[in-house]
């Protein structure tokens, strides 16, 4: 679970994930916040790419869902938190999915493990048959 205790939400936007165009929309939304908040180029690319991966996962493997994009603050720094929710088949073996690695077999696994390395906080909750929730947070680097 991501520690939400001392974090306050500064803004929130819920976007639909139903088509390929939506992958672009969610990505654009995250990127615009990152640029507005003056994240550097590398951090912006990291959060934007992770968002793209996870949005596509929700679309392709989760049958679609929503992305909740929020600006958060822990009193000292500003961050972007994105939550991807789908009501798809869920992930049976989370450990394996997260291990991903260099395998070209399951594109979802690659997207998950890859995204995890791009962000500061990563949480994955999935119940087979019910759906999946992936939450990521990227803080603005000093």
């Amino acid at each position, binding site marked *: 679970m991501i520690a939400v205790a001392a974090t306050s939400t*500064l803004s929130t936007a819920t976007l639909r994930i139903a088509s390929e165009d939506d992958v672009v929309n969610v990505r654009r939304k995250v990127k615009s916040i990152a640029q507005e908040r003056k994240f550097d180029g*590398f951090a912006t690319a990291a959060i934007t790419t992770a968002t793209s991966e996870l949005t596509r996962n929700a679309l392709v493997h989760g049958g679609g869902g929503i992305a909740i994009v929020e*600006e958060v*603050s822990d*009193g*000292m*720094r*500003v961050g972007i938190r994105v939550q991807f929710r789908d009501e798809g088949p869920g992930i049976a073996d989370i450990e394996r999915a997260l291990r991903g690695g260099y395998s070209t077999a399951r594109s979802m696994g690659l997207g998950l493990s890859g995204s995890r390395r791009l962000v500061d906080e990563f949480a994955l909750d999935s119940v087979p048959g019910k759906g999946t929730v992936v939450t990521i947070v990227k803080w603005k*680097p*000093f």
Partner: protein
Amino acid sequence: MSHRKYMQILKLDDAEVRSRRAFFEISDEDLARLAALRPLAEKHTDDIVEGFYELLLRHPETRKFFEDEATIRRVKRTQREYFLGLFAGKCDLAYVEDRLRVGAAHERIGLAPKWYLGAYRRYLQLVHDRLYRELPPAEAGAAFASMQRLVMFDTALAIDTYIAANAETLGRHQAAIRELSTPVIRVHDGVLLLPLVGAIDSHRAQQITESVLLRVAEEQAKCIIIDIAGVPVVDTKVADHLVKTTAAVKLLGAQTILTGISAQVARTIVQLGVDISAMHTLARLADGIELALSLVGKSIRAKEPR
């Protein structure tokens, strides 16, 4: 830092101000009550401000912030405005901006939170005494309660100012460290050199990769030499970072030459099984420079003897 920057960092907009106001339970009644007390406040402003600074000037640790007459005069003037601001009858974005200006000024001169907060307590004491002297107890009580809410609201802003300033300083230090720890040098057209010195943790490793990539792209350098003779410990993690950096540089279309590989490091890397076969590696920096030059179609040649 300017008060505007604080507003930005603390994301102080109308919604945030309203939320704070609600949490500190500052009602319209409170503000009206304080506004009604303005004449009284004006009457006592001078000696309250005097009393406020008497405390600060009495203690050696705080006195040093107000060494010369000009500073004392200016600061007292600011405090008068500040004090009267409590009786303006509003608690909105403009009010907050004003408060931050004062907070920023105090933070800038380096007055620590403990002094700042202790001084606020003095304020409350001075006002409390005069309220009870000038008004019937019930009224004084209500007035003081209203005042307390607003002063606490201000105190929260003051604390936020310090936190935000610290975060900003930390940021600047990090940026400076990043600059100093990745001195990429252009040794020749299309050839860069990065002499790494000191320990490399994950955080620094990432900064290194980023700096390297930016410079390679900027200079359109075909080759970068990374010398690790000055890195004390080269373990799996460090080796892995170097491999990743090389891979990233390759994606840009350039090559990496690793030099400064000591006997010890060579043993460690092979024993650990790290695959650096994709990298050019050499023991001596000088050899690395020669290799780099040859990769860009140049060579070092002795001059013809006269």
